[in-house]
């Protein structure tokens, strides 16, 4: 029976867990028509995204429209996520125009003085750090093209630099609330401040980055030793020109406002718990006021398709929640895990890691979040430590490294390599991605067991 369903679209910035849990537990009976329809729509959207049958945004939007039309059920839009991403996009769009990331990458090349291993380690670290604080796809789009050029110029297979850079972007993204969409989604959902998130996740992200660099040394050591130590003056000059800082004044302003924004992120709790989205939009607005960019151009730079993708996704998953499908799935996992927090944590880490390896980790995280709510609510010690949420973040972020379908930066890097004339097949990516994923998930599991 569809007629008694309710439309709800709360503009809920803080998005308390209690409300979600109450809603999940009071939802319709499993097996109702509404449940089946919402599950069907979600699976179609998931398949369309995972099999790349449709553009992700189109798939999520069509799913959202279908949910509205068929079941008259709206989802819960997590505006904190939407505005946080939007704020960071504006900040990133202004900063990217200064060419600072390429400049940094080129400085690292010069500092490595012909040592390819040192160069790779430095570029991997730069990508990881950049992805921790800025959108990971943007980090890849800015750093990878120059990395490919340097690799080709020193006669090094670009895979030896680009694959670890991509893996680093996913690992680095787990370090902060704004680094990777799964981190933003989960962190915003449970109302974490920037500092609180950082304290819990940055240490394990750093451990995983160190593990990646060691793995990379073992995997590509011979290739690094065989690389040329110098490149021709003409090519060096081209790289230097390409890597010049474009607008020093804008860079200065972006760095000042960026520093202020991060101070505000860290002190938000002391200022009455300002949500990260408000901090990000405040920083972006201050930067716009100071830099005075062409607003028409600025608005074009904001990737509206991504924002609509997130909105559509929240609506579709909201349908699953409201009809009881998520609650039913959570109860099945609860039965398997029993009363054991350890088992529930390990299951969350490895299931989310495995699923994120195969399908896109963003829709998975949105769908898995209500399950984490129910598990946390039923396991009191897990609710206090939030360990199920940490496990979900680590599983989704690190699992995305196994195959190139696992996360957006992987797909983008494969596209960039193809544009450079280098084939990176599914199997070739997995040759590096799978061991690194297993290694980092093992480290994450140990971390979760010891820390919580």
């Amino acid at each position, binding site marked *: 029976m569809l007629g008694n369903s309710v439309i709800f679209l709360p503009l809920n910035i803080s998005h308390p867990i209690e409300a979600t849990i109450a809603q999940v537990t009071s939802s319709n009976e499993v097996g109702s028509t509404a449940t089946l329809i919402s599950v069907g729509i979600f699976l179609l959207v998931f398949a369309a995204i995972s099999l790349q049958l449709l553009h992700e*945004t189109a798939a999520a939007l069509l799913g959202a429209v279908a949910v509205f039309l068929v079941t008259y059920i709206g989802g819960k839009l997590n505006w904190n996520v939407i505005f946080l991403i939007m704020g960071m996009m504006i900040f990133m769009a202004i900063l990217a125009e200064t060419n600072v990331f390429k400049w940094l990458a080129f400085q690292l090349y010069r500092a490595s003085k012909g040592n390819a291993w040192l160069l790779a380690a430095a570029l991997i670290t730069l990508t990881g750090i950049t992805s921790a604080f800025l959108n990971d796809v943007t980090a890849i789009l800015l750093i990878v093209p120059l990395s490919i050029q340097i690799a080709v110029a020193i006669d090094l297979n670009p895979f030896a630099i680009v694959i670890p850079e991509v893996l680093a972007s996913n690992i680095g993204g787990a370090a902060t609330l704004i680094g990777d969409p799964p981190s933003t989604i989960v962190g915003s959902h449970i109302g974490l401040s920037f500092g609180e998130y950082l304290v819990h996740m940055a240490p394990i992200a750093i451990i995983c980055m160190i593990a990646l660099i060691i793995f990379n040394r073992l995997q590509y050591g011979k290739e690094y030793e065989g690389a040329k130590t110098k490149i021709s003056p003409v090519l060096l000059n081209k790289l230097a020109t390409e890597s010049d800082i474009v607008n020093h004044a804008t860079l200065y302003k972006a760095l000042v406002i960026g520093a202020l924004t991060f101070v505000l992120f860290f002190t938000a709790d002391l200022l009455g718990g300002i949500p990260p989205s408000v901090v990000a939009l405040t920083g972006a607005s201050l930067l716009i006021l100071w830099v005075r960019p062409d607003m028409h151009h600025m608005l074009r730079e904001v990737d509206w398709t991504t924002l609509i993708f997130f909105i559509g996704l929240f609506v579709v998953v909201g349908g699953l929640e409201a009809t009881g499908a998520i609650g039913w799935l959570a109860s099945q996992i609860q039965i398997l895990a029993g009363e054991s927090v350890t088992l529930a944590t390990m299951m969350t880490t490895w299931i989310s890691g495995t699923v994120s390896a195969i399908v896109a980790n963003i829709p998975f995280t949105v769908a898995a979040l209500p399950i984490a709510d129910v598990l946390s609510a039923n396991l009191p010690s897990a609710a206090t430590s939030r360990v199920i949420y940490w496990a979900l973040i680590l599983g989704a972020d690190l699992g995305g490294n196994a195959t190139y379908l696992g996360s957006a930066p992987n797909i983008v890097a494969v596209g960039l390599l193809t544009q450079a004339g280098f084939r990176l*097949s599914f199997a070739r990516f997995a040759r590096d991605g799978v061991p690194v994923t297993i290694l980092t998930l093992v480290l994450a599991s140990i971390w979760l067991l010891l820390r919580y």
Partner: protein
Amino acid sequence: MSLVLCATRGGKESIIAQDKAIALAKEQGAPLVFLYIADSSFLNKSAAAVIVDVDEELTEMGEFFLLMAVERADQEGVKAKAEVRSGVFREILPNVALELEASTIVLGHPAGETSHFQEAEFEAYLKTLAQETGATVLTPEKEARE
């Protein structure tokens, strides 16, 4: 007037195509143009937040690869030019070939499962390209493998 147009990128297979184009230009005394097409259509299937000018990034990468190709030709005593265009590869290539009145088009092999083409589709494209442009289309890397 004969002109050799070599559509190229930066991989090893591109070097085979570049060498063939350089040899042909030298043999025929024909002008040689290296072409890189910045095709950002690979981003279409992802909702990744793209807030940088990807075409510009690809164009810079293309300029770098073409600089290497021109250096390579120079070492063989052949003066070559470089052209970078943006757009969908399969649409841009015939347009450039017609614009430059190319008599020979040299292509590398498509880049596997992530290429602009599937194998069978590539064969069909080569025929269409030859018909549309009236040029001789060569794929040296593919021929070497066969």
